[in-house]
């Protein structure tokens, strides 16, 4: 019958109309600034730098190798290396970045910097509310703005971060074992030379 | 004769003359048709004016005549414009000078 389909459709829309007032779950949107949907674990917005421990200066994982700077397609990363070195988590002496700037207004969230970093130092944040009235200065993030703790990383990407932590722990153990073996070898060498000499 | 009836009759005559001048002098067939419509309307105005100021306004001849006239004008416009469109398809023009070639 002509019109029966229309009646069916109108019943459906009426159910939606009334239901949207009664059942909160029906609403597909939230009222944004007051309510927020928590970010998905795989979400990515803009990069940040990971540091270990409490001191952002000392614990920064970045060694200033400039691979990300070279790989960045829109070239929004600017790095200046330091002159002196300091030990990293495995005790190896490394440079660190004297300056590390990212122009957020240029960044296109491609995550290539994260892919290429061999030190697990740069990761993607889920934070996106960077709006500012200062178009140029306000969106240029420097090292202090970018540095965020490993706990923050663990909070936003738990699966990925625990894998990274395990790998780094393993690296540290391997390095420690290697250092110990080297030390023992050196000790044995010394003992041997002593016995020899 | 003077008075309101004469006013309406002179107005209708003027309308008729304008329509006639247009129908005779313009080349575009659509404008010619508009001129013919104007002449028909002048006649309708005459009918209504005569009915209103005539001796027997209780009889409805004037109004009924106008209603029929309007109906015929609508039919005439539909057929006339259909003809113009057909001729346009053939000659790619609506100038009445082209229409002269239609004679057998």
């Amino acid at each position, binding site marked *: 019958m002509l019109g029966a389909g229309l009646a069916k459709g109108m019943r*459906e829309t009426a159910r939606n109309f009334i239901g949207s007032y009664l059942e909160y779950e029906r609403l597909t949107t939230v009222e944004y600034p007051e309510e927020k949907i928590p970010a998905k674990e795989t979400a990515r917005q803009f990069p940040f730098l990971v540091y270990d421990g409490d001191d952002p200066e000392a614990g920064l994982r970045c060694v200033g190798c400039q691979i990300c700077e070279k790989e960045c397609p829109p070239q929004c990363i600017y790095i200046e290396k330091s002159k002196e070195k300091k030990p990293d988590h495995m005790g190896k002496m490394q440079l660190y970045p004297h300056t590390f700037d990212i122009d957020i207004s240029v960044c296109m969230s491609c995550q290539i910097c994260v892919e290429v970093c061999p030190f697990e130092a740069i990761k993607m944040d889920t934070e996106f509310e960077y709006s500012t009235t200062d178009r140029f200065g306000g969106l240029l993030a420097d090292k202090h703005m970018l540095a965020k703790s490993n706990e923050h990383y663990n909070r936003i990407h738990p699966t990925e971060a625990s894998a990274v932590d395990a790998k780094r722990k393993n690296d540290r153990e391997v390095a420690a074992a290697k250092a110990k073996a080297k030390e023992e070898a050196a000790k044995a060498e010394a003992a041997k030379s002593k016995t020899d000499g | 004769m003077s008075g309101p009836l004469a006013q309406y009759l002179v107005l209708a005559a003027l309308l008729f003359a304008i329509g006639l001048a247009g129908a005779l002098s313009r080349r575009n067939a659509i404008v010619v048709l508009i001129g013919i419509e104007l002449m028909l309307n002048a006649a309708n105005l005459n009918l209504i004016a005569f009915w209103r100021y005539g001796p027997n306004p209780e009889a409805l001849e004037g109004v009924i005549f106008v209603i029929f006239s309007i109906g015929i004008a609508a039919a005439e416009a539909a057929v006339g414009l259909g003809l113009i469109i057909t001729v346009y398809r053939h000659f790619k023009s609506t100038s009445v000078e082209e229409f002269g070639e239609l004679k057998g």
Partner: protein
Amino acid sequence: MLENIFVVAKQSVMGFLSGFLPEASLPFISSFLSIAPILGIFPLLFALTTIFERKGLGRIQNRRGPNRVGIPMTDIRIAGFGQFIADGIKSLTKEDIVPSSADKLIHFLAPVALIIPVLLMFSVLPFGKNLVPLDMKNGLLFFFAVGAASELSIFMAGWSSRNKYSLLGAMRAIAQMISYEMPFILSSLVVVMAAGSLSLVDIAEAQTGGIWNWHVFTPWGLLGMILFFIAAMAEANRSPFDLPEGESELVAGYFTEYSGFKFAIFFMAEYLGLFAALSVWITLFFGGWNGPFGQYSLLPSYLWFMLKLVLCIFFIIWIRGTMPRIRMDQLMNFAWKFMLPMCLINLLGAGSGYYIRQTFPQSPLAGWFFEWLVVGTALFWIWLELGDRIAGKALTQKREYRYADQ
């Protein structure tokens, strides 16, 4: 007391003014006092409808709709009902852009030529008992005649913009409005036959005395009500017949090149035309300003009228939230192959219904029953047959593309 408050108010104002104003100016003052409330109430209703429509459509799609704009400088949101004021201010202060190749004069005149006939339509509507600005003997004819004049304004808007989207939108609008003009008029004729008058006041008065006197409760009235509603939606370019302004293919149709307040006038004219058509719908089939309980009126007549109008507005929002836009060929097929024959058959049904009722002069109930039994069954059967055989086929058939399918 409350029933005649407007009449009494106007009379007292006129009595007060006639004391010191010249005699010749009084008819103008009287007209002004009749027109001013219409010019105040219906644009306000339009503004409220825009916000109700957006909220209602949102809820139908499980969204919230606009709920932000409230009182400026405060946090009070009044559920978003400040939105229409903000929209009004925005369209008033926006730049008015005229395309450089446009026909400037016609481009300027088109919105004016559209809003005048639309407002004229309101002049014959009976909003309540004794509340009609112009009680014309041919009120319904006036409504249709003036409504027909708005087609040309749409053509003016589309043509003068020198834009192919505008022109296509205008062509679609004219074709659609001409096609649905006939069902629009023919479907209302059943009520004219029943009431024996073209005056909308007489038609409304013929339905006094309770809900069972409304024309919608007769078989031909029910069918006429449906047909009139469909035709009115098409005349007002309202969803699902909003092809002339199909955003997905024509940008905005005939008012693509209009901006600022001229655009607002087009928008308002569309809604005011819709309100006028709905008001006529109410008057013809739903008793006009009559309350449903006979002599226990409960509310003043104008409030009954406004209540019905607001319910109708909610109904059309509901329809808009439900139906997708139909295709041009479906539109034409539906008008010529279903609406027009159905309207003519309905005229026949109204005539036979009248004679069936005449055969039972003693018991109106028996007449009513037999009318439903005979005419109602026949019309329902024809609806089914015509609907499935012709309209159903025309509406569901696959469209044949002349160039794209090769």
